[in-house]
């Protein structure tokens, strides 16, 4: 991997309180062009906080995030500089991702304008609708005329129309039903690879992650506990937390076995750092 599109070093996110809650505790990662990296972990482990800190929605307590050669500032009142519109985000809730009062074609058009402003090639919103599997004639419709899965596709189209080099997807499929989850995830991978963009894909659905991610990061209590090639981790998890996560996936083998429920005692072993579980490349 040459210069990564996105890199973070020791990102810390804290929420005010007594004591302050450290949601992300020193995470460093790097994502290259055309690489799909999954971030998995249980609810509340800091996945979304990390994603929001990476793109600059959430304030970082310390650490840095670099997109290409520029630092990523926290989103404020000032307009984002053009070079940073090369980083886009898809949110978890498709219903709140789109402006209910604007036609979807216009909203995808905002993405196109962002690409143009950065000196990239323009495109036609209708074309994007087609690319995400929707009727190109739907550009004149309003968001409420679409289902959740369709709205998520529109949000993806808007993000990709900006021709990003990095797409951050914060649980983009968890609000969708099972049948659309896989197809939307596969679509996102295909479109990102097509555009040569990197993607940070956050999910708690390991079976989907296995299908689309080149690399996987496993997060527990604000820390990356295991990382490396998806298949390596899948076949041979080293960290006890990863093992527990994988064991919790139901297996449709007809034997009627229930997935293993983690015990409280297990949690104590999950926080330990295992250096050899990180940066795993070879199977």
């Amino acid at each position, binding site marked *: 991997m040459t210069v990564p599109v996105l890199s973070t070093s020791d990102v810390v996110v804290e929420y005010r309180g007594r004591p302050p809650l450290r949601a992300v505790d020193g995470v460093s990662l790097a994502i290259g062009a055309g690489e799909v990296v999954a971030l998995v972990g249980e609810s509340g482990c800091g996945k979304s906080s990390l994603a929001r800190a990476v793109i600059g929605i959430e304030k970082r307590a310390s650490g840095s995030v670099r997109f290409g050669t520029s630092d990523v500032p926290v989103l404020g009142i000032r*307009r984002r500089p053009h070079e*940073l519109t090369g980083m886009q985000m898809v949110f978890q809730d498709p219903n709140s991702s789109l402006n209910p009062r604007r036609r979807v074609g216009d909203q995808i058009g905002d993405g196109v304008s962002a690409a143009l402003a950065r000196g990239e090639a323009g495109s036609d919103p209708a074309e994007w609708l087609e690319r995400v599997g929707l009727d190109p004639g739907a550009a004149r419709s309003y968001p409420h005329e679409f289902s959740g899965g369709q709205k998520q596709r529109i949000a993806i189209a808007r993000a990709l129309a900006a021709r990003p080099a990095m797409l951050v997807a914060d649980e983009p499929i968890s609000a969708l039903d099972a049948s659309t989850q896989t197809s939307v995830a596969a679509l996102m991978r295909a479109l990102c690879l097509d555009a040569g963009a990197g993607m940070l894909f956050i999910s708690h659905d390991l079976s989907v992650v296995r299908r689309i991610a080149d690399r996987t990061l496993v997060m527990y209590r604000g820390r990356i506990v295991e990382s490396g090639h998806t298949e390596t981790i899948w076949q041979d998890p080293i960290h006890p937390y990863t093992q527990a996560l994988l064991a919790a996936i139901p297996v449709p083998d007809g034997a009627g076995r229930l997935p293993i429920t983690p015990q409280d005692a297990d949690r104590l072993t999950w926080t330990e750092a295992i250096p050899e579980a990180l940066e795993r490349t070879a199977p």
Partner: protein
Amino acid sequence: MTLPTVTTDEVDPTKLRWRRPRLRLGRWSAPLGIAGAAVALIWVLVAILAPLIEPHDPLAQNLPILQAPGHGTLMGTDELGRDVFSRVLSGASVTIPLSLLLVVMSVLIGAVLGAIAGFIGRWVDELIMRITDLVMAFPTVILAMVIAAALGASLFNAVLAALIVSWPSYARLTRGLVLGLRQSNYVVSGQLLGFSALKSLWRDIAPNILGPILVLASLDIGTAILLLSGLSFLGLGAKPPTAEWGSMVSDAVQNFDSWWLGLFPGLAILTVVVAFNFIGDALRDALDPKSNTLRGGGLTL
């Protein structure tokens, strides 16, 4: 007893404003709204066409004084021999446009300042909200009276005084609505696409908060008319020769036996205020059929 931890920053205009007694119209809301719109439309037409449809010059003192209705005049004459009917019609063209102007200006000033406070936050928000607190800490009518009296009696000053007391409620409402949408995914998405603050406000926020602001504005037209006529009634608004409903009622107090002097301008105020309030109530119910307040309806429009 512990109070609920609802701060004044919550989006609930009924809590932010001194409440006016509100009718629960229920299923009559829509028909009454239409009736109100019809009456209001008639009054607006009267306001526009007043000079053409007045049977007499509203300022000319050439009729017998204090004549009861019926003797050649529809609503009698006043103590200076002016036709009351013509003056009531003429009063519409004074009060209605000024009240509409007042509400439009309050909405503009309040919405702009509220949007700035809600979007920028920090000390700008603090400053603007403390100013609104300051104004809202005083009873509306009394503060308007004090300001109008300090500025000197004229219609322009009455409108200015009314403006000063009425913009804060719009600022607070708008601020709350902007604050609610500020962190929403689509506003953030817009910012990630390089929207400036102005573009975010205009494209993503404004269309989604317009509904509740318009409802509050329509409910406020009646209040504005009452406030302006009230100031004129107290001699702080329109100057004597002007045919203004409030000052006509005020003049009528001196000739209490001539009931027609006060009744007709009073009825004019009543009908126009009720008409605009019915429109506002119907609009509110139409935008938020589930509850009797604006709460909740605003953010999901």
